Structure formats: C-alpha cells, structure tokens
C-alpha cells in the first residue's frame, strides 16, 4: 500500500514537472524587419504543431536581433546580413558562438507597366530615378512621359533592402514619389499607371507587370528576375536572409530551425513573397 502511495505521489510530481516544462517552453525570435514576415508566418504554423510552445516574434532590425543574441535575450536572431567582425568579437567575449542558418533569399524585382518600351535598367539609372535626377522616360530612351516613382513605405523591410542594395543608402527624394503600404499596393499602382516604376518582392510578380532585367553597371550582364537566377546567385538585387543561433541548437530551437528548412517551411517562405533556398516541389 505504502509503495502504491509513493508511486502515485511520484507520478504526480513527474506529471507536474512535465506540465511545467510544457508551459515554460518559450521561444524568442528577434531582429530584421525584412525577415519578420517569414518568422511570423512560420511561427504560426509551428505553434499549431507545438501547442505548448510560447513563441514571441519581435522586430527591431538585424543589429537589434544580433545584440539580443549576444546578450542571450533571444533564442534566434533574424538577420538580413551576416554578423560583422565587431559583433563576432563581442559574442565570443560573452561565450556566445553564433551559428548562421541560411533560410531564405530576399530578391526584389524592378517593375514597370507592360506597355513601357524600356527593356532593361542599371543600378545607376535606378538611383537617378529614385533621387529625382531623371524624371522623364525619354532620358532613358523611352517615350516622352513623366516617370511616376513608386516606393514602399520607409519602415518596410523591402524599402530597407532596396535602399541598401540599389540606392547605396540614399533616400528616395524624387519629389512626387508615391509611397505604398504593401507589395500588393505597389503592384496594383504600377499595373494601372503607364508611366510608373516600382519594386516588389519577387513573389509578388504578376502578369499585369513587366519585370526589367537589371545590371550593376552598363557593361552588364543584365539578369532577369526569376527564381532560378536568384537561387543561382546571379540576380543582383538579392541577398541571403539568416536565422542565427547560439552554437548548434537543441530542443525547441533546433526543431524550429528544422521546420523553417523543411519543404513546408520553404513553401511558407515563398508565400511570404521571398525565394526559397532551393527548388521545392509544388
């Protein structure tokens, strides 16, 4: 009888401990606003499989996320760049050993109205357009028509990427530039406006838009915006996106990373308007 009671009490403790562990399974993800939509979508799907996990996804920028990883206040830092040497030094001094996971490609297509005769564009031309130096298509060999500059809002990750990769961190200063709240709104506006030029995540391309092949300089090569050129690493307005962990992770963090890299996770990456790290079957 006594052993029975002991066993029962013991079992109760085990159950209670497991319950507590279940409640305490938290996962903090923090960093780049560019990677944020991916992390949020995948976190929702992951939470559906792991109901006990409490997942918190926060923005703040790549630098903030990496700083949080170094301070051990986040499990996963999401970042639109690899860590800088100075950050590595700080991390190692704090006995944090960063492990970069390549989770998605951020690729941006430059789009114009389908009736626009322009067939390709360089980074220098894009900079001139977005800073207001060139204001008419005829200066680029097109029709005599004012250029309607369309941009994403300045707080968005797509804006941040475009600014870093193409504009050399210059601001969009074209005087009558339109700022749209979403990739969808940019696509909508460019698709309806004959003189417009805009930029959107590759996943938002549709037949009402013409994506221009782009080149870093006039010598070329001009590369078309397709999933293949992005995955092959030759499309110039693209960059890898990372999730960074402290060492090779275990437990819930490892499960989350594996979920991101799985076919289901990579399909979600594409749903969020980004390009998967490999070709995945529909």
């Amino acid at each position, binding site marked *: 009888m006594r052993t029975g009671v002991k066993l029962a009490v013991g079992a109760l403790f085990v159950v209670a401990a497991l319950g507590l562990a279940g409640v305490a399974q938290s996962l903090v993800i923090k960093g780049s606003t560019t990677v944020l939509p991916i992390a949020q979508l995948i976190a929702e799907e992951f939470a559906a499989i792991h109901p006990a996990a409490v997942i918190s996804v926060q923005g703040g920028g790549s630098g903030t996320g990496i700083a949080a990883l170094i301070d051990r206040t986040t499990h996963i830092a999401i970042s639109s760049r690899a860590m800088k040497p100075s950050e590595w030094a700080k991390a190692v001094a704090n006995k944090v050993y960063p492990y970069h996971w390549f989770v998605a490609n951020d690729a941006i297509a430059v789009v114009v109205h389908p009736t626009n005769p322009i067939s390709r564009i360089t980074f220098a031309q894009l900079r001139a357009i977005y800073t207001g130096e060139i204001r008419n298509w005829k200066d680029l060999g097109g029709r005599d028509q004012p250029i309607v500059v369309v941009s994403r809002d*300045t*707080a968005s990750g797509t804006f941040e990427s475009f600014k870093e990769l193409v504009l050399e961190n210059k601001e969009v200063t074209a005087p*009558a530039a*339109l700022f749209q709240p979403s990739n969808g709104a940019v696509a*909508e506006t460019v698709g309806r406006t004959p003189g417009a030029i805009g930029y959107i995540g590759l996943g938002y391309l549709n037949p009402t838009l013409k994506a221009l092949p782009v080149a870093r300089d006039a010598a070329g090569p001009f590369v078309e915006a397709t999933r293949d050129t992005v995955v092959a690493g030759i499309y110039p307005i693209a960059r890898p996106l990372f999730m960074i962990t402290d060492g090779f992770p275990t437990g819930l963090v490892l499960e989350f990373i594996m979920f991101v890299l799985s076919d289901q996770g990579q399909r979600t990456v594409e749903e969020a308007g980004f390009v998967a790290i490999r070709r995945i079957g529909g």
Partner: protein
Amino acid sequence: MTENHGRAPAVASWVGRRWGRAREWIARGVTWGCASVSLLALGLITVYLFCEGVPVFRTVDPLAFLGGKAWFPTSEPPSLGILPMILGSGLVTMVALAVAVPFGVATALFIGEVVPTVFRNPLKVAVELLAGIPSVVYGFFGLVIVVPWLEALLGLPTGQTALTAALLLGVMALPTVASLTEDAVAAVPNAWREAAFALGATHWQTMRTVVVPAARSGLLAGVLLGMGRAVGETMTVLMVSGNSPRFLPSLTSPTRTLTATIALEMAETPVGSPHYHALFAVGTVLFVFTLLLNVVGDMVGHRLGRHG
C-alpha cells in the same frame, strides 16, 4: 397591490418597495460605471499618447519636429520633420470642406425646407447611410474608379493626388455636415417662417434671411465636426493620396497626411526607437487638433440647444 388581506400582502408590498428602490440604485450604479469607463478610457489614452510621444524630443527639438521639412525616419541619423504632413492634412481637409459644406448645407435645406414631408425621412436615412459606408470601401472605390478617372480627365501621370483624397473625404464628411445642419434647421420655430411669409418674403428669401441665420450655430458645429472627420480619416487617404512625404503646393500632386503616416509606418517600426516615438507624437498632434475641434464644435452646438 390594490387589496389588503392581512400581513402577507403587506410584507410583499414592503419587499416590492425595497426592490424598486434597489433597482433604482443598481440602474444608477450601472450607468455611472459605464460613463466612468469611457472617461477612464479617454484619460488613459491621453496619458499613453503623451508618454509615448514626448520621448521623441530627446532626438529632435519640438520646433524642428513641427517645422522640419524632411521626413526620413529610417535614415542614420533620422530626419523627423512633420511640416509636410501638417500641410498635407491641412490642404486635403480644406478642399474636402469646400466640397462637403456647400453640398451638405444644400442637402440639409432641401430635406428640411423644400422636399414634401413624405420624402423627408427616406432622404434623411439615405444621407445617414452614406456615413455608414466603411472607409476602406471609399478607398477602394477611389483607387479603382476615381484615380483612373482623374488621370484621364486631367491628363495626370498619376491619379493618386491630394485632390482625389479631398474629393472622397468631402463625400465622407458630407453626412456629418448635412445631419447637424438639418437638426438646426428643424429647430427653427415655424412661427418665424410664417412671420417671414406674412411679410411677403418668398420661400428662397425666407431660407436665406431667416432659417439659415437662425440655424448658423448648428451649421458651424456641423462644419467643425465635419472637419474633425476629414482630419482624422485614415484608410481612404492612405489608399488614394500617394503618400509622398514631400509637400508640393499643388492639388494634382501626391501628398501625405498625418494619419496616413502613422498607418503607413507603424506596423514595421521597432518599438522604442525615435521613429516609434515620432509616430506617437504625430498621433498626439492629431489628438490635440481633433479634441479642440470637437470641444469648439460642441460649444457652438450647445448654444444652438439653448437659443434655437
């Protein structure tokens, strides 16, 4: 309790009286509670807005914030000047009022003075329905219909302009102007109209010289509240105004309002950054402005209540 058969009914009536009194107290408590919840909510929102908005002045001084011409919130260091948005909001609101006031007042006079009584209520309902259309529907209608139409009509490179936003806001503020004016017109005593007719005034002369002057405080309240509606509207403006953060003194150029700035940038702004506090400070500016409009509108409206 009309009959009295001894003690039991007496007790019942005592209980009944007590219950009646208790009910009164409960009703009083519940209404008092509800009223204080809305007051408390207003108080908390105000405090929160100021607490989150004021820290922006650690990055930029108040004059540079209100008078600065450059808005590059994600630059290093950020430029946080909201003058273009204040001017944008002002321009769009004024043009919207230029649409809403004449049409609103004319609608109210038509409903109150001209139309046969049978049609009065259906018309009033129709005007109120106009106020019930969600702003995103106005925005979508604007984007799909008004934007291409203005583009074609005026030969503009893009139809996402201050004018587009102002036209839609004018239609949205019209019901506010119309229904407040209509109330004021209805409050003008009939004897005054009859007196005017007796002096030989025509219908039009009566409206112009008796009804409108008598209803002017209600009319003014309608204009002020309509202005509040136009200043505070967000979704429609966000969708059709183009959101260009540089102010161009032209109706046919894109513009950006205070409300659209918050809606556009809030979702992806890091919590606690200067940009975040700047957006709250923009909210505070809007709050102070609409509060003033409402207070003034209310005061003017009350004068109507007493003298109308």
